[in-house]
């Protein structure tokens, strides 16, 4: 059986053999390599994948994939909030220290004391703020999960 035409495209025999699972490992690799870049052949292959030929996975793969995606979204949002909070805290500390003023020749004891007190105050308030934002995000996703579960029950 020829898998490829002279022009390099897959033969009908090749696609049928793929569908009927009669290709060996190397042949499947060769077919996969071609389908990975050939638009014409991928269109021909997907046209053969009609509803009656499709297989059903034993576990709900789409649902599992979607849960992994949501976890990634959550992690991304939390890390963005933390980064933003850290930047804001740093900017406030630097501003309090007077580093943005033009005249920064002397750093008096009072200024250093102010910086230390300000740093401690900002650190305790931002950690509380960050925790509150994390709780908000978790509540949003918990509500979404509750809504999805209700929809699933209705179905």
């Amino acid at each position, binding site marked *: 059986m020829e898998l490829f035409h002279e022009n390099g495209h897959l033969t009908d025999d090749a696609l049928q053999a793929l569908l009927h699972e009669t290709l060996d490992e190397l042949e499947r690799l060769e077919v996969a390599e071609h389908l*990975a*870049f050939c638009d014409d052949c991928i269109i021909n292959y997907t046209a053969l994948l009609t509803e009656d030929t*499709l297989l059903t996975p034993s576990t709900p793969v789409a649902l599992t994939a979607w849960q992994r995606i949501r976890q990634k979204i959550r992690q991304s949002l939390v890390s963005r909030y933390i980064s933003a909070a850290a930047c804001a805290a740093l900017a406030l500390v630097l501003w309090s220290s007077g580093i943005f003023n033009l005249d920064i020749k002397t750093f008096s004891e009072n200024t250093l004391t102010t910086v230390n007190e300000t740093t401690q105050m900002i650190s305790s308030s931002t950690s509380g703020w960050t925790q509150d934002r994390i709780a908000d995000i978790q509540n949003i996703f918990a509500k979404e999960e509750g809504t999805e579960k209700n929809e699933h029950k209705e179905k």
Partner: protein
Amino acid sequence: MTNEQFRDMTIQYEKLVYTICYQMTRNTHTAEDLTQETFLSAYTHKESCPDDYTKQWLARIATNKAKDFLKSAYNRRVYLDAGETGLEVISQEPLPERLVETDAETEHIRSLVNKLKEPYLKVCTLYFFEEYSTEEIADALKRPKKTVETQLYRAKQKLQTFIKEDSDGTFS
């Protein structure tokens, strides 16, 4: 594409992606893993999904995932099966490039190359007889350069096997 639309898409095309992954790998657990990987990759690139070709777009991603898996498994199996003896024998055989010195040797190599089937035949013809580089072969045949390099590598292995069979034939 919103997250809700993407979620609906995963439900709609779950069987299609799984079927492709299974037909390529013929293993249910691998197919399930690759199906998940396909949707994860699709989510990362969801903005590039063409409107009327969602099915083909997902099929392309699934095929690429399966291809990478098959390639890794095949390479591991080939090197394990070859063992020390196999690799030594293969490496001792001269590479086809080194044989093309006389007209007779050229014809000999041409006859061996003509034994190859596509997708290796054209790649080898352009490489050995037209002296194309892999970039030029990729342009001429409209294949990715990496695919051409892989096909050339496999073709050389097949040619070395032909050369070895020829040598054994001469002495037997």
